[in-house]
C-alpha cells in the first residue's frame, strides 16, 4: 500500500473517531428537551459528557489538520466548496461549546434555559450537516477543471444528501441517548432506555434506506462487495444495539451503536475510494487519493508522527474514560449554582 492510501485510511480513522465520539455528544445535547424534566436532570445529562466533550471535539481539529497536511487539495476544495454549510457547523459548535461552560455560571432559570436551547441547536445542526456533507462527497459534486466547487448551498440539499443528513441526525441522537442510559441512574436512566428503543426503530429505517442507496449507487466498482459488507455490518450492529437496549444491556447497546457509526462512516469512505471528491462535471476533474495528496516526503514525516502518537493518544484518552467511568448520579448534582 502506498503512503497516500495509508493516509486516506488515517484521515478516515480520525473522522470515524470524531463521529463516534462527538456523535454521542451531539445526541446527548439533542436529548435535553426529551429527557430533561427538571434542571437537575438536565445537569445530570450534560455532566455525562462534561469531562470528555472537548477531547471528543478535538478529533475534528485533528481530522481537519491531517486532511490539510496529507490532502491539501481535498481540504481546499471541500472547505471552500461547502462554505456556508461549514459556516453553520462552526457557529453551531461555538454555541454548543460555550454553552456547556456558561450554562452553570448563571444565577437564573432563564439563563440556563437559553444556554440549553443553544446546546440543542448547536448539537442538532452539525449532526445533520455532517451527514449532508459526507453524502455529497460520495455522490459527487460539480467540481471544475481547477478543482473548484461550482455549486451553492442548495446544490448540497439534494435527496441523497438530505437522507445522509437525516441518517446521521438520527444515528447520533440514538447513540447519545444510549450514552445517557449508560451513564446516569434512576428514572432518567429508565427514560433514556425507553427513548433509545423508540429512536432506534426510526434510525434503523432511515439508515437502511441510506445504506442501501449507497450500495446500489456503487455496484459497478471493483470493491462493491466490500462496500456492501460494511453497510451490512452497520445495519447488523444497529439492529443489535436496539435489541441489546431492549434487553437492558446498556454497555452492549452503546458499544454496538458506536460500531454502527464506525461501519457507516467506513461504508462512505469505501464508496468514495479511490476518489476523495468525485466531480459530476467530468470524471477527469475528480480529486483522487493520488492527485490530491501531499508529497512522499511530507507523508513520510507525518507517518512517523502518526505511528508514535496515535497509540499514545488512544492510551491516555482511554484512561480518561476509565477515570470517569462511574455513572453521574442524581445525588452528585449539587443544589444551586456550581463552580
Amino acid at each position: 500500500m502506498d503512503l497516500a492510501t495509508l493516509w486516506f485510511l488515517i484521515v478516515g480513522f480520525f473522522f470515524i473517531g470524531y463521529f463516534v465520539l462527538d456523535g454521542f455528544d451531539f445526541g446527548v445535547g439533542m436529548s435535553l428537551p426529551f429527557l430533561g424534566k427538571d434542571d437537575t436532570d438536565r445537569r445530570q445529562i450534560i455532566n455525562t459528557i462534561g469531562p470528555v466533550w472537548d477531547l471528543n471535539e478535538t478529533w475534528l481539529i485533528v481530522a481537519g489538520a491531517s486532511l490539510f497536511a496529507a490532502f491539501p487539495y481535498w481540504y481546499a476544495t471541500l472547505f471552500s466548496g461547502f462554505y456556508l454549510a461549514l459556516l453553520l457547523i462552526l457557529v453551531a459548535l461555538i454555541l454548543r461549546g460555550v454553552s456547556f461552560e456558561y450554562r452553570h455560571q448563571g444565577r437564573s432559570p432563564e439563563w440556563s434555559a437559553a444556554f440549553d436551547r443553544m446546546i440543542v441547536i448547536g448539537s442538532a445542526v452539525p449532526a445533520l450537516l455532517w451527514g449532508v456533507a459526507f453524502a455529497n462527497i460520495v455522490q459527487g459534486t460539480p467540481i471544475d477543471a481547477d478543482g473548484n466547487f461550482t455549486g451553492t448551498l442548495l446544490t448540497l440539499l439534494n435527496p441523497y444528501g438530505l437522507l445522509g443528513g437525516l441518517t446521521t441526525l438520527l444515528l447520533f441522537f440514538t447513540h447519545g441517548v444510549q450514552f445517557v442510559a449508560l451513564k446516569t441512574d434512576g428514572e432518567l436512566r429508565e427514560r433514556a432506555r425507553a427513548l433509545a428503543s423508540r429512536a432506534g426503530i426510526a434510525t434503523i429505517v432511515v439508515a437502511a434506506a441510506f445504506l442501501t442507496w449507497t450500495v446500489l449507487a456503487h455496484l459497478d466498482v471493483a470493491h462493491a462487495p466490500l462496500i456492501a459488507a460494511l453497510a451490512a455490518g452497520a445495519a447488523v450492529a444497529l439492529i443489535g444495539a436496539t435489541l441489546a437496549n431492549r434487553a437492558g444491556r446498556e454497555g452492549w447497546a452503546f458499544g454496538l451503536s458506536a460500531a454502527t457509526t464506525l461501519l457507516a462512516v467506513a461504508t462512505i469512505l469505501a464508496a468514495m475510494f479511490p476518489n476523495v471528491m468525485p466531480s459530476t462535471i467530468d470524471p477527469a476533474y475528480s480529486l483522487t487519493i493520488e492527485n490530491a495528496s501531499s508529497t512522499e516526503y511530507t507523508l513520510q514525516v507525518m507517518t512517523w508522527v502518526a505511528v508514535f502518537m496515535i497509540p499514545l493518544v488512544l492510551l491516555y484518552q482511554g484512561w480518561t474514560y476509565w477515570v470517569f467511568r462511574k455513572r453521574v448520579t442524581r445525588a452528585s448534582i449539587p443544589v444551586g449554582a456550581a463552580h
Partner: protein
Amino acid sequence: MLDWLDPLALARWQFGLTTLYHFLFVPLTIGMAFLVALLQTAWVRTAKLKYLHLTRLFGRIFLINFAMGVVTGIVQEFQFGMNWSDYSRFVGDVFGAPLAMEGLLAFFLEATFIGLWIFGWDKLPAKLHLASIWVVSISTMLSAYFILAANAFMQNPVGFTINEERGRAELTDIVAVLTNPVVLASFPHTIFASIMFAAVVVVAIAAYHLSRGQYDETMRTALRFGGVTNLVAFAGVALSGDQLSLVMVATQPMKMAAAEALYETAGPASFSIFSLGTPDGSSEVFSIRVPYLLSLLSTHTLTGEVEGINDLQAQYVEQFGPGDYTPIIWVTYWSFRWMIGLGSLAALISAVGLWLTRGGRTPAGWAWKVAIWAAPLPMIASLVGWIFTEMGRQPWLVFGLMKTEDGVSPNVTGLEVLISLVVFTVLYGALAVVEFRLIRRAAIEGPKEWEDHSDADDIDRSKLATVY
C-alpha cells in the same frame, strides 16, 4: 472606496478579525495555565490554604476563558480552506504538517488533561491531579510552538522547493521548518508575552480585593506573585523581542524599515520616537529621533547600516517584477510603537507596585486603581504586535513566494464572505460581552466559596468536585 463585495478585502478583514479575537483568549490560556500550575504546586508542597484558594479562583477564570479559545480556534483551522483555498493548495504540503502535529501532539493532550483537571479534583490523587495541569500548561506551549512554526514559514519560507508543474511549495526539510530562526525567536516572545498577560490579570484581581480590604493575606500573595512573574516575563519578552528584530532585519528587511518609517538607507541609523510621512507613504515629513538606536537594535552595532524603504522597494521591483512591496507604513510604524510602549508600561506598573507593597506596606488608593486598569495593557500590546507582524508582511502572504491577493478562494463569492464576516462579528461580539461579565464576576467574587475553611485539614477533596 471599499467594494463591499470584494472577496479579497472581506476575507482579509475576516481573517484579521477572527485571528485577533482568537488571540484574546490564547495568551490568557497559555499564561494562566502556567500560573495556575505554579499556584497548585505551591498548594501541594506547602498545604497553605491561600494557594488552594488562588488555584481555584484563577482556575475558574482560566476555564471561562478556555472554552472560547477552543471554539474560536476551530474557526482558524477551517478558515484557511474556506477563504484561502489557493493558499492552502500552494502551501499545504509544507504548512499542513505543523498544523497536524499541533493537533496530534498538543491539542489532544490539552483537551484530555483539561477535562481530567476540571473534573478530576475528587477522582485523582493530589499529585496526579497536579500533574494534569502541568500537562495542560506544557501542551498549550507546545501547540503555540507548532502554530508559530507554521506562521514562521509565511514570514521566512525555509525547507521547501517549488514544484513549477504542480504550482506548489513542497516540503524538503521538516527540521528546517521547525527550527526556522523566526519561530526560535517568536516562540519565547509569544510565551513570555502570554505570561505577562495572565500575570497582570492576577495583579489586577488582587489589587481589587486589597483595595476593599478583603482576603488580605491571600491577595497580597497573589499581588506579589503576579508582579514578580510579570517582571520576569517582561525581561523574557524584551530579550526575545530583541532577537526577533535581528532575525526580521535579516529575513524581512522591509518589515523593519516599515516599523521604523525609515525611508532612506542609513548607517548609523537613528530610532524614531514619532514620525509623520507624506500621505502616499513615500517619504518623511517630520520626526523625532534617537541617534544610533536603530542600528543598535537591528545589527547590535552602533553604526550598522539599516536598509530603507525606498531602496528595498527598488530592489524588490528588480527581483519580483513591477509592483508595490511596501506595507502600510502608518500601521506598521504605530503598531510597533504601541506594542513596545504598552508592554513596557505594564512592566513599569508592576515594578512600582512591588516597590509600594514591599515589606507588607499598603499604598494609597490610586495605586490599586492603576493596577486594576493596567490589566488590558499586555493584551493590547499582544494584539498590536500581531497586527504589526502580519501587516508588515504585506503584500506577501508567503514572503517572496505568494502575494495575499493570489491566495484567496477563487470560487467563494463576496456575498458568502460577507455573510460569514457579519455572522462572526455579531456572534463574537455577543460572546465577548458574556465572557467579560463572567470573568469580571468571578474576579469580584474572589475566593468567597472558601471563607468557612480555616485550615488545610478541613478540606474534603470530594467537596472540590466540579459539576457543570
